[in-house]
């Protein structure tokens, strides 16, 4: 009677001891992500036409588009990583990076300057943190 639970227990213990870790062993091993994992939004400033659809549709109101100042701004803490902006972007200049949003210690607003490609093919683009 007593033997059966002991045999079962030993089996589980041996499996736990020899079966390797069930954890992902981060940061010893770099994390792996699935193809569809949604992460922080990234913009390709050379493709953006400042239509403002993403800012209008964002459920969290995290995106601000300034047509006059030619800037595209995202509040990383407000962003809920729903990928709605990337889905509706007519120029497909928004993509969701394939990893998790990194932790931050304060409010971060990423501001991107959007400059259309000039005739000579020279483009001026930059990112500043504010």
């Amino acid at each position, binding site marked *: 009677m007593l033997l059966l639970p002991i045999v079962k227990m030993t089996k589980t213990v041996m499996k736990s001891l020899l079966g390797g870790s069930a954890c992902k062993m981060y940061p010893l091993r770099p994390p792996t992500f699935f*193809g*569809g994992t*949604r992460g922080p939004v990234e913009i390709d400033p050379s493709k953006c036409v400042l239509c403002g659809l993403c800012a209008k549709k964002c*459920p969290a109101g995290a995106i601000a588009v300034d047509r006059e100042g030619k800037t595209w701004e995202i509040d990383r803490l407000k962003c*809920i*990583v729903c990928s709605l902006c990337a889905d509706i972007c007519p120029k497909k200049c928004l993509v969701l990076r394939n990893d998790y949003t990194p932790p931050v210690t304060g409010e971060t607003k990423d501001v991107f300057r959007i400059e259309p490609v000039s005739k000579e093919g020279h483009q001026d683009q930059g990112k500043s943190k504010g």
Partner: protein
Amino acid sequence: MGKRTVIPFGPQHPVLPEPIHLDLAIEDERVVEAIPSLGFVHRGLELLVEKMDFQEMVFVAERICGICSFMHGLGCSLGIEEIMGIEVPERARYLRTIWSELSRIHSHLLWLGLAADAAGFESLFTHSWRVREKILDIAEETTGGRVIFGACKVGGTRRDIDGETLVRVLGRMKDIEADYRSIAAVFRDDYSMRHRFSGVGVMSREEARELGAVGPTARGSGIARDTRELGYAAYGGLDFEPVIEDAGDCYARCMVRVREVHQSFDLIRQAAAKIPGGPVEVKVKGFPEGEYFSRLEQPRGEVIYYIRGNGTKFLDRFRVRTPTFANIGPMVKMLAGCELADVPVIVLSIDPCISCAER
């Protein structure tokens, strides 16, 4: 009879990381009365409808709960679709069923882990959560999110699972189920789990019916009520029976959840076998005008969504009756007359989700 004393339980308590406060009136070590109070994490999500596009409201609804988030989004979508008369494609219905059942499995495994923890069985707790992690991986692979899936929308789903991924996921699920079976056997047969939960917080079938218990709390008392039988999403085309236990104690409620996980694995297999091809969404035109009650079965029980539209892009009223709210009455009844040491186990046995109950 001893002197009556009132001791507070929560809003911070080791067994429950969520804020519910109970005033426990005790005589000696016996609880005579429990008075619950809520309102510590009220977020006013229901009032947000007045400022939010009805299609974006699905994202808000998803954030009512951090466990059964997909089903909250689904409840909101179902209500709006019914008001607007939108016919959701068949494939989307099956996808919704698959993701709902994935949510149920991960929610129940989380609860089972917590139950093992409440009984002091730490290794069983870690094993339950180890299996849960694999389910979360499947959720992330198919929807892109671990807990907040963001996959449901008015008119269908935002993502599709391609055939290759579905086959791969089903293959992995077979191993997960085998793994789960060995854990379920411990919940079923182990002396310490049985000893801690049996005979604690007994609620008879009549009491459960009178107090309006829902979900595993009702089914643990022998009431065969499962909202999935209404046939929303693709449940109408799947074969299942509500899981019931008759004892009405914490052990019965635990067993209902243990068996429901098996049922969910089976439902996913059935849905994957029957899933038709075709589109996963239809275009939504116009604005909702009218009202509807949508009802669906969450891991904790039946949730009711009341939605009223006024023909503009903002809804008039949005009200959610969550299962935890319905189960607080039965919980207070179970607490009256129990031992003080059994209070954490009884509170845990209804699987309280306070962020749901507060919204």
